[in-house]
């Protein structure tokens, strides 16, 4: 998973699978929780950047990050 768009796509896939009954509810729930943790770490990074006054873009938030 390279960026937030991919995370979103995978979450969306999981949701449709769960709705169709192709994925277990517990698995889906755990995956959603993990996605939440990733987003929280992103929030910490954003806060850090604003506190340190860093104007640099966050790679994970770009649609096509640097390789």
């Amino acid at each position: 998973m390279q960026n937030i768009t991919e995370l979103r796509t995978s979450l969306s896939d999981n949701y449709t699978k769960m709705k169709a009954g192709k994925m277990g509810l517990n698995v889906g729930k755990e995956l959603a929780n993990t996605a939440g943790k990733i987003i929280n770490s992103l929030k910490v990074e954003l806060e850090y950047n604003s506190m340190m006054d860093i104007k640099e873009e966050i790679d994970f938030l770009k649609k096509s990050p640097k390789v």
Partner: protein
Amino acid sequence: MIRNTNVDDTTNALPFAKHVLAEVPSTPTKKEKRKIYQDNYNRINKDKQAVFKQRYKDENREKVRKQARKRYNDNKDFLAKQTAQKQKYYADTLHDAYMKQHLRKLGYKKEEITKYPEIKETIKLIIKTKRLCKTSQN
């Protein structure tokens, strides 16, 4: 500009005004005719009406304030019910307004929310998944 003031005759109405003209009952009474005419006139002359309203508000500030307070007090329960319904609808449909509020509670700044809409969408999906789990388990 020639205005169509005849309520019965909508054939000569201006093209942009045709769709807003109310349907005329087959045999309208004098009162109905007057109301239809007034409604149509107000719809067509919205700008003019806005100017009149603003002038009235400026001239009768205290009166308008009192009327607004009275209207609020008279319909307090209804307004509270309406607000609750609206909030429930926003929460159920994960409306943008609700999501913005939610993200602000989580600690995101206004600029961050507008700058990175992907965060909002991802959190929306997470909430949707969790809700699905909750309803399925029940």
